[in-house]
């Protein structure tokens, strides 16, 4: 449910680091709490965002939630399959349902995030 190679935020987003590129998505807990995701709004590529700032919105049939970026930097890629087919966020939140890729401004930001065990403990 919570892969060990990812870092987690208390807002239920995850980060996967490849070099200095951070891939960001929402956790299984988030997608299960939301229910069927029907809309994802993401910023344009090239947008600069700060750590923990709002970068988009995710909507289920019933509710709207803000997306907060667990890391700051420049958005270098947005996942068009998540905006075109939002159900991928439910189906594969750690895979095809990723949301954005960020070129990190400061890799030390990752130290402020939780590992899988710590994150999971916050859910109990």
């Amino acid at each position, binding site marked *: 449910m919570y892969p060990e190679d990812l870092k987690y935020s208390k*807002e*239920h*987003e995850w980060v996967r680091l490849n070099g200095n590129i951070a891939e960001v998505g*929402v956790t299984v807990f*988030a997608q299960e*709490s*939301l*229910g*069927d995701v*029907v*809309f994802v*709004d993401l910023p344009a590529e090239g947008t600069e965002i700060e750590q923990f700032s709002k970068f988009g*919105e*995710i*909507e*289920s*049939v*019933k509710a*709207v*939630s*803000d*997306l*907060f970026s667990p890391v700051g930097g420049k958005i270098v890629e947005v996942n068009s399959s998540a905006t075109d087919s939002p159900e991928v966020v*439910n189906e594969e939140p750690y895979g095809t349902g990723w949301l954005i890729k960020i070129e990190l401004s400061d890799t030390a930001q990752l130290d402020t995030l939780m590992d899988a065990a710590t994150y999971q403990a916050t859910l109990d």
Partner: protein
Amino acid sequence: MLSDKSQSSSEQLKKTVLHATHVESSAKMVPFGGWDMPVQYSGGIISEIKAVRSSAGIFDVSHMGRLEFEGPGAESILSSITSANIPALKIGRGKYNFICNAAGGIIDDAMVYRTGEDKYLLVINAGNVDADMEWINPHVDGRTDFTMNVVTNETAMIAIQGSSAVEIIDSLSNGDASKIRRFRIGAAEVSGIPAMLARTGYTGEDGFEIIVAADEGVNLWKTLRDAGAVENGLGSRDVLRLEAGLPLHGNDLSVETNPFEAGFGRFAYYQAPNCIAGYALKHLAEIEPSRLLIGFKMIGRGIPRTGLKILSEGSDLSDESKVIGTVTSGTHSPTIDVGIGMGYVEQKYSVIGTQLVIDVRGRAVEAEVVDMPFYKRE
């Protein structure tokens, strides 16, 4: 990214007789109208909606208020408190109506069924039971020509809706169910369980709302589930009713709105001499409403939600002079795969085809006034 405001306490909430059955089915329970109710089951809202549109779904609607009126004065009390033409209602028929105050404001919307010569059933919204009773009781007090009994707790009510709903109930009632035509009510045995079957619903599909003794509720639910009907929660029910263009009291109707501006003047019969709202409703019928409830479809990317502003154009969302109304209901429709909503707008913007802008939390998203229902069964 998630707020936890929905995690309110479940103590003090009432439970229907099906509560434990919902929990056993891993339903997500939420407070609604004073009751702890299933919002969705493990399959998710979209699969529940699809089941209703393609085959059949079952809904626990036991939380809705059920009042029986019986006696020679039943016709006159219902004429005075509802907007239905009660003397014209034949035995075995039901009518959608409004419970309006003396100013014509909608306290609640309701279904009234005539179940016998001097016997009627009034079904009201769970969340409005207190407001309804507060308003009804003074008109009932002292009257000895009828009795009013609240039968909500001694009965269970289960709706079965969808293209195969009638077929399912027919097979469980030796074909008796389909003899009850649309908007009618009758008695039948469903799998041996004595029941009142109303051929009505809140989804835009054919089907029944079935009332049985409370202690038969679980049995009926499981029988219908075993017959192939999919468990549906309040989440799908809200989307289904919106797709069908049916209003929800508390959202699209309120004591601040009247039946004519809501576009349901045809359900506001005000000619009964003792109708308490009659004078106000007659006046409202004769004037042009300043605002009207419209249905709209999103053109741009975005989902309308309750409370969002409707503007005539969106070049400057902070320009209050462009605000022409408010969204009262909105969702993504899985059936037609687009954002849909209802809202009140100034009358001149209510014409079909009018272009609107919805302020989706700071984003100007284009929409268009369309005819309702958004979805119509074949």
